[in-house]
């Protein structure tokens, strides 16, 4: 799975949660939840969706690594490789 596909998937899922925002305007280092106004419940839903869609396990202690687009991408790419 390449970077572009992962990114597209992330954007699709973010769009579902925060339909009024355009995730493609996110800066790489921006905090996703702050930028898109996502609460803890939706954040969990997002993690659930990501893990289901990309078939990766994201333990609770790794939630911190999913905060920005850049870190999330890196985290997922590394996860998928393994």
């Amino acid at each position, binding site marked *: 799975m390449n970077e572009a596909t992962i990114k597209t998937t992330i954007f699709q899922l973010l769009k579902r949660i925060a339909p*009024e925002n355009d995730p493609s305007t996110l800066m790489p280092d921006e905090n996703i*939840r702050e930028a898109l*106004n996502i609460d*803890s*419940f939706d954040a*969990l839903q997002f*993690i659930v969706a990501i893990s289901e869609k990309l078939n990766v*396990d994201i333990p609770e202690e790794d939630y911190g690594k999913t905060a920005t687009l850049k870190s999330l991408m890196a985290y997922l790419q590394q996860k998928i490789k393994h």
Partner: protein
Amino acid sequence: MISFKMPSLGADMEDGTLVEWRKQPGDLLQRGDILADVDTQKGLIEIEFFGEGVLEKQLVEEGQKVPVGTVLALIRPVGAEAEQVVPPAAAPEPKKEAIPMEPILQEEKPASPPVATEKTKRIKISPLARKMAEMHQMDISQIKGTGPEGAIVKADIEKRLAEIVPEKEVVEKPREVLQQAPVQQAAIPESEAIRKAVAAAMSRSNQDIPHYYLEKRMDMSKALAWLKEANKERSVQQRLLPVALFIKAVAKALDDVPDLNAVWENGLQRKNEINIGFVVSLRTGGIMVPAILNADTLSMDAVMACLNDIIPRARAFKLRSSELSQSTFTITSIGEGGGDKVFGVIYPPQVGIVGFGEIRDEAVVHEGMIGIKPVVDVTLAADHRATDGLIGGKFLAALNKYLQNPASL
């Protein structure tokens, strides 16, 4: 043998009186011969024969009035032998054949007059308001109308709904409108309707309910540690959020202090079930407050499952009205980045609302030492008509007890 009948000379001719026979039995008849004179509404008309033959027998006497279609005479076609004449039965033939182009629209039989069943005084209510009331199973006799002639209108239903439970009407109405309207069209945006409903309920709450407020900072270190452990065992789909803990803890605390699990309607009325209304804020603005029924009896996982079910549905406006109408107490949780404390406004006719601020690390004094601990500021807003600060304090103490002992939940 040819049956010569009383002819139909128009749809408005029903019968005719045979005034005079112009031909007698045995007479040879030719096409166009006048057989008889018949009196009609329009006057005397000569009745013509369109065939050829011999008049065998006259069946109707002069002066007799007969319907159209009645056989007047029998005529033997040219060439046929004379035969014994058997006159047809006296009854005239049917007036006319069934013609398919006869009335397409059949006259409806008058319906029997409606039987008066309602003995009670008729309640005037607009069709829209009636539809809304039926949808929400509301008793319209309890609603005061403010429309023309005291009729109940949409605004009255909305006001009443806000009294029972906020936003109730917005849940199903937009879909109803789409289904019933003759064409697809934009209904009132849900968010706008919700805004109105929230406004109505909150205004009324602030006007009618004398609130008192209590606040208590609670240590979350044990609760979070417990959650962390619990989530390790759980798949990502089943993980718990702190709010599930709060809900469960509040439900248990209400069980301990039942005066807050109540409504104020002509006095305090305790509720048997503990149904926690949970404030879900909508991205487009406004809030929805679906209920988690019998939260005190649910496991933590069940509470979380319930949240996973109702929050997305609330945000998609797909709640059932029953889910909005049954809560007995309300929780609002401001979540991360929202604020340290939140002071709720009570949803009438409930008598209390508890607010959880953001969980954050604070310096706290513990056994004479200053340490950093995760804490949450919890507030209670309660109806002073129903309870006093003493009851409120008991509730917060009970809540804290449960949060410090999460395993007991």
